[in-house]
């Protein structure tokens, strides 16, 4: 049974996340309409870039951070069977992050922070944007601290026992996020806030981009780990089976946390400030991080196969048909894995040092990250919400049919939106353009793909509205009271795990490994800015 405080805490976080999500969805559809060039009345570069910046911040920072915090509190209390440690601090983190969002929203919505969600200098936003973003991150650090304290307290109280897998994954994500956010925190605190306040005149954009690259790749895994957590701890049970291997799941989370961090230079392949040897080193690491995704794919599909066979499925693939396709968690994981295959392939192309030149800064890139983030990650956020809402509100889900329809629409919409986006990249369309003018053979070839993207965006917007409607109707339903299980049902592994070696049950060792890898992969590339002769700017700007 989830206690009342956790319910309120989790629902508050999740509603902020989904409020940001629905606003961002409307902006997304406006953006494809505006960029298409089919509607001259909409043409406005300032409005477009204000919208793109807000859309990116809402989706990538607000939706994710608040969702992960709300989900984390739920996982921690239910898997460890203990209340949230220091509830006032948890609420303090929530309000700090929310104040940060409001503070950042003001310059975003008034066009004074049209710097996109990557906010690379030399473009500079109003200081309130950076200060607001900082408060959001500090609020999330509070969540990290609470998760790690609860993890540690449980281990102390239960010596020698295996930490429940859901909490192990959540604690690993908290550790990952502390490391991940340090790069952008250094950039914002020492470069962008002083610059935006006029305290300094110049900064070195190369250093800023290097520090952002520190954050930019592992942040994707910070967003993705809740989805992977659901893959491992919810899906097998919902499918009617067992988790194929608890140990393999832990290995996947460890490798994700360790190797997601020292690989960010594949975002800088075309940048001049880092030498090619460092880029190659990070490029090799990028391929290593594909391994935990393959392990996850294997373990989850094997768990589904067991479930399908226990439900009567025969033959090599007959088990797929016997899976409960109307279960929102099971349907979501199937659709998420399908999108992960195509999105993962796009990622491998991005990471390929030479081929990156072909798609660098083209429409391929937003196509790729929308498929991975908007597709695989967000569809699992939907599934988690559909699963948690009855438990958090005490009311049965308003409509399972509506939920299943919504998930299919999201998948179809995402396919129709992102396929032409990738093609446009290969056809040479740059990313970050505000409109297309069809006055030559190059841009005329883009026309049908732009039309398809508008259609895909409309389907996604409809799907998003259905999602919010279902959650609101569930929560506001005055008649439906607890008719569902009161406890979260975590999947059991085929072979029960009672004790584990410390390297599969703790994070201290891996924290040290990360420190070494980060020192090796980012130490010299950052320090060089303070030793090399620069003209017109200095590293921090002082």
């Amino acid at each position, binding site marked *: 049974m989830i206690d009342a405080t956790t319910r309120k805490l989790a629902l508050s976080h999740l509603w902020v996340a989904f409020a940001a999500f629905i606003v961002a969805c409307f902006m997304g559809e406006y953006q494809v309409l505006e960029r298409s060039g089919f509607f001259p009345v909409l043409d406005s570069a300032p409005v477009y870039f204000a919208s793109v910046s807000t859309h990116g911040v809402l989706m990538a920072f607000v939706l994710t951070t608040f969702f992960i915090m709300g989900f984390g509190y739920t996982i921690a209390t239910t898997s460890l069977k203990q209340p949230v440690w220091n509830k006032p601090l948890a609420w303090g983190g929530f309000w700090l992050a929310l104040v940060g969002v409001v503070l950042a929203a003001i310059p975003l919505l008034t066009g004074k922070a049209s710097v996109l969600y990557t906010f690379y200098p030399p473009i500079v936003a109003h200081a309130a944007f950076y200060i607001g973003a900082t408060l959001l991150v500090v609020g999330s650090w509070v969540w990290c601290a609470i998760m790690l304290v609860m993890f540690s307290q449980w281990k102390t109280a239960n010596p020698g026992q295996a930490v429940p897998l859901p909490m192990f994954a959540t604690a690993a994500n908290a550790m990952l996020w502390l490391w991940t956010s340090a790069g952008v925190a250094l950039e914002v605190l020492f470069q962008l806030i002083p610059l935006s306040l006029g305290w300094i005149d110049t900064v070195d954009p190369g250093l800023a981009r290097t520090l952002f690259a520190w954050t930019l790749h592992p942040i994707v895994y910070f967003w993705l780990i809740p989805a992977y957590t659901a893959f491992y701890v919810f899906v097998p049970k919902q499918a009617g089976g067992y988790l194929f291997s608890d140990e393999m799941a832990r290995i996947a989370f460890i490798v994700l946390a360790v190797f997601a961090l020292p690989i960010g230079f594949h975002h800088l392949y075309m940048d001049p400030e880092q030498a090619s040897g460092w880029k190659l080193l990070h490029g090799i690491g990028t391929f290593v991080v594909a391994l935990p995704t393959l392990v996850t794919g294997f373990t989850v599909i094997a768990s589904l196969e067991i479930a399908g*066979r226990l439900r009567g499925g025969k033959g090599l693939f007959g088990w797929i048909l016997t899976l409960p396709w109307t279960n929102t968690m099971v349907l979501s994981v199937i659709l998420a894995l399908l999108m992960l*295959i195509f999105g993962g392939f796009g990622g491998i192309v991005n990471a390929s040092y030479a081929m990156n030149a072909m798609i660098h800064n083209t429409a391929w890139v937003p196509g790729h990250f929308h498929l991975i983030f908007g597709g695989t990650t967000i569809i699992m956020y939907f599934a988690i919400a559909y699963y948690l809402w009855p438990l958090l509100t005490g009311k049965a889900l308003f409509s399972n049919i509506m939920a299943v329809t919504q998930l299919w629409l999201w998948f179809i919409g995402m396919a129709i939106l992102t396929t032409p986006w990738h093609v446009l990249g290969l056809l040479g369309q740059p990313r970050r353009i505000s409109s297309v003018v069809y006055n030559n053979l190059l841009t005329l070839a883009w026309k049908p793909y732009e039309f398809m993207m508008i259609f895909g965006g409309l389907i996604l917007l409809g799907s998003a509205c259905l999602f919010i409607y279902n959650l609101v109707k569930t929560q506001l339903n005055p008649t439906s009271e607890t008719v569902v299980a009161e406890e979260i049902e975590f999947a059991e592994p085929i072979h029960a795990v009672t004790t584990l070696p410390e390297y599969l049950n703790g994070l201290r060792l891996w924290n040290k490994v990360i420190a070494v890898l980060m020192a090796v992969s980012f130490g010299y590339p950052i320090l060089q800015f303070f030793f090399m002769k620069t003209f017109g700017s200095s590293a921090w700007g002082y």
Partner: protein
Amino acid sequence: MDQMSEEDRQHILESSPVGTFALMSAVIGGMVVAWLFLYYGVFLPRG
């Protein structure tokens, strides 16, 4: 599912996930082919 004997159930739990191996092999093979196509068919011809 209800008619499944305990023996059958144990057999399923202990047997190798052959369908998963087949699916994963197909996916990885497909990715390799697609990568090679993109490299030799699209990237290199562009010079």
